[in-house]
């Protein structure tokens, strides 16, 4: 557990951090370090420069901006999980944050960091997909917004450029008739540890019928992914248990399910249905 030599900088401002990234194509951003440091220690990843944004002020707040919440780059998992705002308006994300890592990780790691890390079995990645969140990426060249649906590219790969920092996560606030939920099977059983399979669901019901739904999966493929066919199948239904079960049958449609140590393709395909059904049921409750 000894990383290769690297330079370390801890700028005091976002501009300095962005400049450091612009000047060092081989630099890597670190927020909580809960994923980056172990990878460096295992020498799986050896950036020449680590730009630690942890000392920058003003990035650790969760703000209510009317129709959406803004979650700063340095908001810890525990803050996301315990935030009354997130719990009320983006329940799937609060739940996913509460199931991320262990207490030490949740106290140190950040929601934006976990999303940018794009682990294939992370929790909050599925939640932001289902919630239709937007990522705000900043570089010296400016600011751009990336929809969650476009953000996760592959295992440990997201749409951020090397000189960009994910400065903010914008999550639409659930309004009347809207609900969201996240649930998973963890590698140590129950909801403990990384997801063997997990599902996040967001549903909007108007006049007794589902008029919008988004469902995302994690742990079953190479990245967190939208299960688009489920939403399509559910829209127009009454959101009953029967309708949920029928829609859940489409969970793995179009999803490239992969085998790993924790499950075969058949098992993970099955779990996708089970957890989509459970997440939808919770979202509609």
């Amino acid at each position: 557990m000894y990383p290769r030599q690297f330079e370390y900088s801890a700028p005091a401002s976002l501009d300095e951090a962005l400049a450091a990234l612009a000047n060092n194509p081989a630099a890597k951003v670190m927020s909580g370090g809960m994923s980056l440091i172990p990878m460096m220690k295992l020498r799986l990843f050896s950036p020449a420069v680590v730009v630690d944004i942890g000392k920058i002020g003003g990035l650790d707040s969760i703000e209510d901006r009317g129709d959406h919440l803004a979650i700063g780059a340095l908001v810890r998992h525990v803050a996301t999980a315990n935030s009354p705002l997130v719990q009320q308006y983006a329940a799937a994300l609060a739940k996913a944050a509460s199931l991320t890592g262990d207490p030490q990780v949740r106290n140190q790691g950040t929601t934006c960091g976990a999303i940018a890390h794009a682990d294939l079995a992370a929790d909050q990645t599925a939640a932001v997909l289902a919630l239709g969140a937007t990522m705000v990426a900043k570089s010296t060249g400016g600011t751009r917004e990336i929809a969650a649906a476009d953000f996760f590219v592959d295992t440990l790969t997201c749409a951020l450029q090397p000189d960009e920092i994910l400065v903010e996560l914008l999550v639409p606030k659930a309004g009347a008739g809207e609900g969201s939920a996240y649930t998973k099977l963890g590698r140590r059983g129950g909801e403990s540890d990384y997801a063997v399979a997990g599902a996040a669901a967001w549903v909007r019901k108007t006049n007794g019928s589902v008029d919008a739904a988004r469902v995302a999966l994690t742990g079953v493929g190479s990245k967190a992914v939208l299960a688009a066919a489920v939403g399509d199948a559910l829209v127009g239904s009454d959101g009953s248990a029967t309708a949920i079960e029928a829609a859940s049958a489409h969970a793995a449609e179009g999803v490239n399910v992969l085998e790993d140590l924790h499950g075969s393709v058949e098992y993970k395909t099955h779990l996708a249905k089970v957890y989509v059904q459970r997440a939808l049921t919770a979202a509609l409750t």
Partner: protein
Amino acid sequence: MATTTSALGGAIRRREDPALIQGHGRYVDDIKLPGETAAAFVRSPFARAKVLSIDASEALAMDGVVAVYTAADVDSLGPLIAQLSFAPRPLLNGGEVKHVGEAVAMVVAENRYLAQDAADLVFVDYDPLEAVIDLKDAHSDRVIIHEGSESNTIISWAAPFGAEPEDQQAVRDQIEADKSRDDTVVVSQEMINQRLIPTAIEPRRVLAEWNPGYRSLNVWSSSQIPHALAGGIAVSLGLPTTSVRVIAPEVGGGFGAKLNVYNDEILVSWAAQQLARPVRWVETRREAANSTIQGRGWVGTATIVGTTDGEILGYDFDGIADMGAYTQNFTVAIPFLGLFVGSGQYKMPTYWKIDCVATNTTTTDAYRGAGRPEAVYYLERIIDMYAREIGMDPADVRNKNFIPNEAFPGAVSPIGFAMDTGDYSTNLNELLEVADYAGMKAERDAARAAGRHVGIGLSSYVEVCGFAPSGLADLGFNWATYGLPTAFNGSGLVRVNPDASATVIIGTGPSGQAHQTTWAQIVSDRLGIEVDNIVVKHGDTGDSPMGIGTFGSRSAAVDGAAAYQAADRVREKAAKLAAHLLEAAEEDVVFADGGAHVAGSPDSSVGWGDIASIAYQVHKAPEGTEPGLESEVFFTPSNATWPFGSHLAMVEVDADTGNVEILRYVSMDDCGNVINPMIVDGQVHGGIAQGIGQALFEEAIYDADGNLLSGSMVDYPIPTAGDLPAFELHRTVTPTDVNPMGVKGIGEAGTIGSAQTIVNAVVDAVAPLGVTHIDMPLRPRRVWEAIQEAR
């Protein structure tokens, strides 16, 4: 003479915890020496390959690199020394590497980071050979792993132990005859007891310092066996054993993985001597997974033949145990320890055989329980299957077949070993009563009726521990290969100091077992000196009596007994001195309240200070008194101890996902007399947690090429407190007669009792779906797949 204060049995708080909890414990990494260097190893990425050449020139050219050593530098030291070694490990391999992670070169640099960088720049040219990873494949001898061997089977153990082969065969023939009877039931199942990675919170580390003037070595190592390590280093380096001092300071968990003399410990010591600079090696978690030993790794078939009303007529176990690439300290002895308890606490005729087989994987050796959890697992699983087959309650089947109380003392297990004491039915029945077994069954049945998959699992167990009878030395259980031809005696020195405090120096040291508390209680019990006034020293071969170490649940029963006897001898002398001071007869002296008085006259008393004072100023003592007030005792018991118990669990399976939730876990252990119930409970807690870890989570997974796929904590889930229910712990007390305290040992019992308890419960939960067996670990996927197959 009698004591009126008894510290034995008191749940006093662990004295070591304030330092450990507050970060003031001193581990090897907390000890810093001037001029230190750091070592790193270059390890084979192949499971089997010829080393063609090693090019260290780039590494040597790096600033800060002190040396790079290969096999050519150290071959003259010979292979790694180990007792019971049949396939010794080279210190560094320059010939044919035999598992992924085997060391081929050692780099020494100015710091650990540079050493790792340089290790990455040592280029080794390998010629890969076909590796044999699968245990059955290795057993077939299709490919022979060790050149010159005729078979990958290194040794076989068979029982009844000590019987002539024809007598063993006669037992087997009788079992076969019973199987073919029309009126008997035969239940047979092949089962895997998977390989595990012992996961101590502190991986291994070693620091060595050579003094060229005194020609002596100081070695700090996170070890369970400092004396053997000192001997092993001395033998390898050609030094007198008195020239090597090993210090095991705080040791952050061992579980058997630190019960070896490792090649890195020899090499770091040797390099410190070569360089005349201190050398430190700190193990990474990946090295801990694939270069330190692993545990378990059996495949075998258990068979019971019995009557339809629950009488077991015979038990047959035929197994293969995975030794890995080399044999180290106890590697081939682990299955033998399983054989000890092969017939458990039952009276049925038993034929038990295991082949110890080499594979191109990491060496296996002792992991908490060490052979006994494996053997008990097979037996208790198949008893459960037999009970289900004949439709009898598994508790009734066990009760019907226990060795009866009247067999004690003098009971000999069907497998051929004399057992100390036992009362198996009382233990089981008390468990059933305290847990409300009848109520649990009603609850399970109601849950089933409601469509839930709830199950109950039961296991009894007997273990054997407190190894020490001197005669075991003839079976190879000794440190002779480490230049210390001693049996597995316990040792302890008790000294009452001039200021009336006591110093206890012991031959074993803790890796979490709280020796500082327990030994103080033992000595306090014998002398009446307050626990707070007793200091317990351990782990330093420079000042402690020759000791074997902490493993096999042996410390209290063997070394504790030595300290107990040493304290008694001190008290005998003190009684003479007190009698002199009190002008009373020696036999009228009573020890109490930090001193002594005449029986019946507590007002006429002397303190330990008065006694110690004349012990060290003997002109005030009776003529002829030798100065000093201490005793050192070596103790060998007449037998090992045989703790036992019964565990009960209730689980619920989510049939849609295969997830297992433990609803209740109740244990009834019997470790004889208890020195400190809180510490015993702690040991049972940890033991059950690790047994549940095996049952539900843990597995060393290799691919076909011998790569360890589960070599990091990401892929090797161990249970945390949050994954476990609140354990309900209970005890019966059946003291042993092989040591003066009547204590048996509790370090491994929880592990030995628990894995099959969980598996029995899970199988019970899904039995209505047609499942009869699932191999561990019962990760959700396994359970779900078993349900699919049964459907």
